[in-house]
């Protein structure tokens, strides 16, 4: 008997990967924070590009509506549609505010490299930023240190979160100073799923704008799971990944307020970023073209359009949110009672504050490894272990007790079921209740 709703079971049929069997069992895919599976409609869109109009979309003059030939015209139609969809569903004012990138990391690099920061400016984030929203800013700090001739210059600062990882608006507001020119925040945590409430983001937006800074939102873990509106939140730049919302691998989006995109220096330059060149100078295109260097992933763009339509129209954020909450509630109900001196959960205990993510940790990597290994071997369960690109936070919080590296994350999406959560929880329970009995065949 299954407890999944008919809607979910019907949706699952659209995912070819979920129909596969290994050792007679289907996959249990609980690594959706990293990358989601793809429905047939997205796969078909990718195939359509390669089968019907597999051509180059570049080389056109800025603003040109008509390209040179049959295939290019068809590609252009799909690419424009996808770019509009990528902007429309986050409340963008115009498709020209949407830059195609490979992923959230690239999008944030474009911003961090392109902002014209000066010595004395400061960059602020939380203590738990993903490396994609940390390293680009550390590189910006390095460049400013070099310019200042001061290797100790502190440019990037952070504020602390609550003990349970929850966001503390008062701390964040207090950390903004007149020198803060960038507030770069992860909207939802890939470690423990905690989300910054919309009201808090609006308050931060007001404050950072008062001091003349910009608000950059890493929305990699929010846009795939909830309705996000850039205008309502008051953000200046927002980055998300299409491959975390049923889209093609290696597709991402940078959205920016157009007047700010115009002021950004281009990051990777060359073919198709330019309006014209001479032997000694270059004139760049207007945004978004100046940020999209070289031949692009045109199939990915077509697939991105299909993925966004699928998430917003076929599935819908209401269903996504409801299903994730139901699944994470079940996981929490099963795993929270197992907590002990050798096993515990990260983040707030209330699953409604953790999106679709539940992360467990242990001082014993062997225990964590046993859960992952047995899950894979016995039930085709795919989860993620490690530091999840939040090394800096985990080092800061847990190095002193030696447990920073022993983490295991299960992350659900709308197509997961309660049965899958139970199958995973059964294995966790088995290992945690007898932690020294599962070492064979390591």
């Amino acid at each position, binding site marked *: 008997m299954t407890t999944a709703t008919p809607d979910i079971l019907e949706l699952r049929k659209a995912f070819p990967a979920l129909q596969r069997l290994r050792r007679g069992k289907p996959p249990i895919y609980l690594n959706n924070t990293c990358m989601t599976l793809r429905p047939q409609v997205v796969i078909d869109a990718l195939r359509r590009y390669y089968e019907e109009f597999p051509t180059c979309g570049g080389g056109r003059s800025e603003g040109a509506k008509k390209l040179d030939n049959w295939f290019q015209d068809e590609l252009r139609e799909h690419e424009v549609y996808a770019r509009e969809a990528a902007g429309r569903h986050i409340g963008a004012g115009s498709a020209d505010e949407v830059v195609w990138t490979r992923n959230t990391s690239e999008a944030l690099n474009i911003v961090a490299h392109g902002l014209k920061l000066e010595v004395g400016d400061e960059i602020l984030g939380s203590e738990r930023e993903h490396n994609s929203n940390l390293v680009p800013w550390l590189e910006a700090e390095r460049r400013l240190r070099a310019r200042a001739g001061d290797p100790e210059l502190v440019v990037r600062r952070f504020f602390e979160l609550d003990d349970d990882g929850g966001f503390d608006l008062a701390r964040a507001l207090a950390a903004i100073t007149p020198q803060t020119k960038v507030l770069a925040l992860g909207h939802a945590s890939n470690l423990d799923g905690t989300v910054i409430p919309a009201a808090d983001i609006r308050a931060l937006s007001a404050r950072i704008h008062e001091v003349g800074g910009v608000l950059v939102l890493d929305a990699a873990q929010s846009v795939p799971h909830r309705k996000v509106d850039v205008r309502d939140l008051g953000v200046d730049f927002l980055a998300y990944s299409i491959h975390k919302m049923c889209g093609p691998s290696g597709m991402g989006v940078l959205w920016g307020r157009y007047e700010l995109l115009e002021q950004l220096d281009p990051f990777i330059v060359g073919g198709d970023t330019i309006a014209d060149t001479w032997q000694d100078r270059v004139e760049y295109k207007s945004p978004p073209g100046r940020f999209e260097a070289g031949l692009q992933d045109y199939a990915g763009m077509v697939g991105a359009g299909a993925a966004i339509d699928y998430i917003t129209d076929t599935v819908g954020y209401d269903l996504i949110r409801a299903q994730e909450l139901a699944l994470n509630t079940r996981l929490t109900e099963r795993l929270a009672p197992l907590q002990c*001196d*050798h096993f*515990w959960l990260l983040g707030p205990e209330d699953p409604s504050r953790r999106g679709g993510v539940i992360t467990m940790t242990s*001082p*014993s*990597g*062997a225990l*964590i*490894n046993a859960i992952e290994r047995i899950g894979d071997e016995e039930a085709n369960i795919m989860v993620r*272990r*490690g*530091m999840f690109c939040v090394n800096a936070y985990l080092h800061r919080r847990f*190095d*002193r*007790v*030696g*447990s920073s*590296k*022993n*983490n295991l994350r299960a992350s659900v999406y709308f197509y997961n079921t309660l049965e899958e959560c139970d199958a995973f929880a059964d294995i966790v329970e088995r290992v945690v209740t007898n*932690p*020294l009995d599962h*070492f*064979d*065949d*390591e």
Partner: protein
Amino acid sequence: MAVSNEVRRYYADKIFAAMGRERAPRNFLPMDEPVTGRATVEGCLGGGKNITEFTVRCDEARILDVRVSCGLCNPAMYVAADIVVAWARGRSLDEVLALDPLRVAGLEPFFVVLGGPAWPDDAREKFQYALVGVQNALRDHRGEVAAAAPEFDEPTAKDWADPDEYEHE
């Protein structure tokens, strides 16, 4: 292969029992004092997440402290790292660097700590990797290039009655 009884016992009594939310065995905690050398070694199968890092703090001749850090997944690696690190602490750099990781008989000081007459092969392989890790951290301290870690033979169920028989394949 199954984890040997010697490794299982050491891991349960000396390592797992000493771990908790607010505690860990000393050898697995970061140093309070500045590190002077570090090296990594991939001592377990399982890909890039299983890189074990060794850190040392030395003066010119002696190891003042040495620690290990890893998302260790294998009890034998935990055990080997714990034993090799504890053995190396306080010794001279030359003494530690003189041990040949490829010669099983030379690993006797580690097997002795493991206890009992058996020299289980699962510990042998991890001792070898742990020793390379510590030695390369010492080379880093000296500003020397790290030695490439050999791919040591995978562990078997063998118990080394005559370790001089060992011939690296």
